[in-house]
């Protein structure tokens, strides 16, 4: 059974957008959306080290290395903040340093081996339908569909299970603390989810689309509603819509799908922005 390629691409994009939209909405509320950008750059040395240490380009090894680096970034930003560094600056220092380290590692040691920097950054969602998950000789369908599906379910599960806690931590950390919620544990839970989502989506859709989908659906939905549950649902829906329209735009213009999905997300945001502004003016 082979799924039609456009369906696979749109489905992978929609799953990536949905997963990112869920965690990204919380980043929007906590004013930490740039962390997605930071983590997506900072995972590079993790990928490079995982490759250098194991010599394998197998997805699980790389994802593990990258996820550890993502968490390290979140932790470093938090630690620097406690040491008195303002959050955005701490982020800037951490991710640029890690990214630089990653580039040095790749060019110095892995230069001759084919570790494609472009692929890491841009991803190639267009190849997703042909990268199949083979168990023995049996094909279980496109690998990206499975990874993104699993990550989407993981994010959904975490958000549903800890909805109240995450909500409190996002809107009023002080009250959350007073109610006995372990705010810092939920901070790291969110950071773990962001890291896993970012890293997992890399292979499938590339860094640009991950960063775009972390902020675009959440920010757009934020302008449309006052309720968190509605906002999350809208974010997932908008992500899926951007994925479908982005694919069509890419087909029409014959350009990169990831870039087109980000642009469509931007257009959707601009429309909502304009609408929200008109509505507010009355």
């Amino acid at each position, binding site marked *: 059974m082979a799924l039609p390629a456009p369906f696979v691409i749109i489905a992978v994009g929609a799953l990536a957008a949905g997963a990112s939209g869920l965690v990204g909405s919380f980043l929007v509320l906590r004013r930490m959306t740039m962390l997605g950008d930071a983590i997506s750059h900072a995972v590079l040395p993790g990928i490079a080290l995982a490759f250098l240490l194991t010599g394998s380009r197998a997805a699980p090894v790389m994802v593990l290395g990258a996820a550890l680096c993502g968490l390290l970034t979140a932790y470093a930003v938090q630690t620097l903040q406690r040491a008195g560094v303002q959050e955005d600056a701490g982020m800037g220092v951490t991710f640029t340093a890690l990214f630089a380290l990653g580039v040095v590692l790749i060019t110095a040691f892995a230069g001759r081996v084919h570790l494609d920097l472009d692929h890491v950054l841009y991803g190639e969602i267009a190849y997703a339908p042909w990268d199949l998950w083979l168990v023995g000789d049996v094909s279980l369908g496109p690998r990206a569909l499975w990874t993104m599906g699993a990550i989407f379910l993981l994010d959904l599960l975490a958000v549903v299970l800890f909805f109240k806690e995450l909500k409190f931590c996002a809107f009023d950390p002080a009250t959350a603390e007073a109610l006995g919620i372990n705010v810092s544990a939920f901070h790291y839970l969110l950071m773990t989810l962001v890291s896993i989502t970012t890293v997992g989506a890399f292979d499938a859709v590339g860094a640009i689309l991950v960063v775009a989908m972390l902020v675009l659906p959440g920010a757009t939905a934020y302008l449309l509603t006052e309720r968190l549950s509605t906002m999350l649902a809208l974010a997932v829906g908008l992500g899926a819509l951007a994925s479908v329209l982005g694919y069509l735009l890419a087909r029409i213009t014959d350009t990169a799908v990831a*870039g087109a999905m980000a642009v469509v*997300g931007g257009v959707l945001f601009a429309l909502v922005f304009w609408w929200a502004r008109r509505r507010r003016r009355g």
Partner: protein
Amino acid sequence: MDANTQWVMSGTALLGMAAGVVGVLALLRRRALMGDVLAHAALPGIAAAFLLTGSKTPGPLLTGAAVAGVLGTGAMAAITRYSRLKQDAAMSLVLTVFFGLGIMLLNVVQRMPGGNQSGLDKFLFGQAAAIVPRDVRVIMVLAGALCLLVLVFYKEFKLLAFDQEFGAGLGLPMGRLDLLLNLGLVLAVVTGLESVGVVLMAALLTTPALAARYWTDRLSRMLPLAGLFGALSGVAGTLLSQVGPRMPTGPLIVLAATLLFVVSLLAAPHRGLAARLVRMARTRAQVRRERLLEALYDLSEEAASAGLPADVTVADLERRRGLSPRWVGPLLERMVRTGVVERVRAAAERQEAWRLTGHGLAEAYQVARRERLHLVYLMHQAEIGAPFGPEVHPQLEPLLRLHGLEPVLGRGQPGEGVG
């Protein structure tokens, strides 16, 4: 060192200096990540400029980058102004959408005859090693312009960074100044794009400025210091890249800057972590000493009023005052050496006991008195209104007597031993 390396070094040093200076202002405006955003947002400008002019010379490409940067700045301002989204979301939105558009345009460029990516993709990762004399001259002019801009508008930018409302009150056009600062950032980014690339330009705008923040609280010193750090990073990174055959200059510059930041974070006087740890240790030692003196005083006073010898054991201190024997023991030993307490029963006996000397009692009296005044102050804070300090002591003393808390042991009789 060959001539080529010297050119690279002077180019990166100048670039680091200019970025450091402008970065300080961005940092203080809480826009440390603006460089990152603008550097990404420049991509569609570069690609569009190439599509329009078909030229790969820096002139049109940098103009395109600057136009895109200005558009991005405008979009960010509009988003934060006209919606309830905050700065961070505005920055992420502009970054991703512009960059996505840039990738799409690059795809179009790639398919054009003669438009293969080479020459354009170096804007993404930078090619510091390819700096030639002509580039250095461009960098020199742009870096000079940036430093001049900061110098000319020094006072205005200072107000922008620290007290915008006051600046507006003075009748200064703060909105336009903010735009000018953003233009400065765009200029810095455009200057650095070709040599250190998109991501690493963000580092040059953030890291040296942040490192400089640790050494001084004065803007007039922070600006040149950040410039110096940026220049040093440029020189160090270029030198490091000479070590091996495949060492990329741009990332090494960033790592050099990061090293400078880490050293500053740890070792800077006053604000550095080491200095802070020393201060914390000193404060803790002082607090412990005062807690011990107060406890010794209270227990001595109690024993004296019951007619018992004013001897105190470590076990008492732990049981009745919750002081951990782990630090009480060594501290008592030190106080013996400075003549504050004396050992009244030797360690060989089962219960080692201590007693305040006359000198120690006088000091403990002062500590206990202040603590009790504070206690009374907390009870009557509402009536007194003023903050706790020597000024309210006269008001508190009658209250102290009223509550029967006045310390009596060793009062006004320094050097006379325990009563």
